């Protein structure tokens, strides 16, 4: 038993080292375009895994990640911009004090962005978790819209529809993948702890969980706040990756994409969330090929923009028809599983 645990730890460590080398090679020998996809992938894994904590593990169907990403993005952007840049950007209404005179390095900005988002999540949790099921989805959806509308109108903080421009491109693959690995590790450890068990119990049967002494409200809040923290930090990374943010970036469409990722991967499976995020960000790019003009023999097909989305939809429909619980279902990857598979193949 103990031998297996040691073996699994070594395997995990080795694969992390492999990941490191892979990223190192990618950074030095590939194009800006590939790096962009890698960055996006890491951010989407972070978002999907933390979103899955509340939707899949705790079973509270909520639709607010775009709000958390927006709060994180704006908070970190307002902290890293220099006072001079802020003065230049805020042409309609000046930025309020003290935000107009501070400028912090990237790391503290990200951490503060995470904490601020977690705090918003915490406050939001009080009204939100008074309802369940479909109502919860609607209320959180409403909150997501509220945040976007506020960002659009609170000009003295967010610069309104003009957004924030000229952010320093701090985000690189070390930041995104480093944080991605941390997030996945954190969530996996949480899910496999007594607290994660309690969250799953709430998903399975809230009444029975309460009767077993579990404070359902407290654990829902915990899952919600933790997922808000990680989504906030990921938002900060996203902002410094694309260097320009505006409210249109954080519409419901972002939430919708994440929802597709975790449902396609398998609601309640962290492994599934990762697979879903990779397929979404890498697959989305690979499918660009279908939008190019094509010649199949004598047949000439002009490029159709949006063709990707058609194929995406077909894939989703197929998933719904043939794999109702997603790619992974609720199963998780484990080294034991892989080794058993390999042994099985040898036989």
């Amino acid at each position, binding site marked *: 038993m103990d031998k297996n645990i040691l073996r699994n730890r070594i395997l995990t460590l080795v694969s992390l080292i492999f990941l490191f080398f892979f990223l190192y090679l990618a950074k030095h020998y590939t194009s800006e375009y590939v790096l962009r996809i890698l960055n996006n992938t890491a951010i989407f894994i972070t978002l999907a895994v933390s979103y899955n904590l509340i939707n899949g593990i705790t079973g509270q169907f909520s639709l607010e990640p775009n709000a958390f990403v927006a709060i994180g993005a704006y908070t970190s952007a307002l902290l890293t911009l220099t006072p001079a840049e802020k003065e230049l950007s805020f042409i309609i209404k000046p930025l309020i004090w003290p935000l107009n005179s501070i400028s912090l390095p990237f790391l503290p900005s990200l951490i503060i962005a995470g904490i601020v988002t977690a705090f918003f999540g915490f406050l939001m949790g009080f009204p939100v978790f008074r309802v369940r099921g479909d109502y919860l989805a609607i209320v959180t959806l409403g909150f997501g819209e509220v945040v976007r509308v506020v960002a659009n109108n609170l000009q003295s903080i967010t610069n309104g529809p003009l957004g924030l421009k000229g952010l320093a491109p701090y985000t690189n693959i070390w930041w995104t993948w480093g944080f991605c690995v941390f997030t996945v590790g954190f969530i996996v450890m949480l899910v496999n702890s007594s607290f994660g068990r309690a969250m799953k119990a709430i998903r*399975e049967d809230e009444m029975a969980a309460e009767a077993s002494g579990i404070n359902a409200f407290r654990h829902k809040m915990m899952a919600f706040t933790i997922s808000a923290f990680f989504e906030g930090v990921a938002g900060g990374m996203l902002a410094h990756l694309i260097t320009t943010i505006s409210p249109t970036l954080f519409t419901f469409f972002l939430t919708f994409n994440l929802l597709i990722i975790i449902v396609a991967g398998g609601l309640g499976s962290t492994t599934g969330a990762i697979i879903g995020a990779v397929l979404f960000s890498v697959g989305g790019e690979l499918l660009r090929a279908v939008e190019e003009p094509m010649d199949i023999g004598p047949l000439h097909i002009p490029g159709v923009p949006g063709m990707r989305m058609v194929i995406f939809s077909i894939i989703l429909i197929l998933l719904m028809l043939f794999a109702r619980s997603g790619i992974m279902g609720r199963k998780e990857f484990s080294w034991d599983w892989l080794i058993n598979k390999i042994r099985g193949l040898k036989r």
Partner: protein
Amino acid sequence: MSFFEIKNLVMRFGGLVAVDDFYLSLAKGELVGLIGPNGAGKTTVFNMITGVYTPTEGHIIFQGEEIQGKKSHEITAMGIARTFQNIRLFNDLSVLENVMIAYHCRIKSNFLQAVFRFPIYLKEEKKMVNGAKDLLEQLDLIDFAYEKASALPYGQQRKLEIARALATHPKLLLLDEPAAGMNPNETEELMKLIQTIRKDFDLTIFLIEHDMKFVMGICERIKVLDYGKTIAEGSPEDIQDNPKVIEAYLGERKYA
């Protein structure tokens, strides 16, 4: 002061009086049954005791403390555990995890200590595993420890629900139709099990049951509920001969 006491308990749902002026007093270690035709309000009484419903009126006093209106998990933590009429297990989790969840309410470490696997958390986790395994052993469920709860046969699922309730360290155990859907052999076994856990865990038991052989065979005292009202109370023998009870179950004599 008795161990557990209910006074003038009333539950109204709009115009419907589900439970009317319910009273009960349990001494420590007693085994009391609650019977009545379908829809008499028995489960509503349980739901009020365990905090699922807040009673419209009345008092529920457990070990000298009023508990009506408290939250379910608080009441469980005070020492009242229950099982459900239609089994409610955590289906997708293993049998062992189902029982371990009941230990979670007494965990001292916080979630960060759990995530980063502090020694204090690992010690608690180990205690949970060992406690749950002991309990499964005691109830002959240990062979299923790593099976999914939903994969258990029906009778074992009932037993697992009792195991989970016991894991919260209750002083008062509420069983909602524990023998429902069981064959005579299984019922016989369940009776023995209830007698054993009552002794081993020093429990007071209050149960709802339709199986008359079961109720008459195991309960020391029985309360009969009909349309929310208590119509009879006493020893199994008294209840069997009580004309009001016969009427409630079989209808009035002239139609019989």
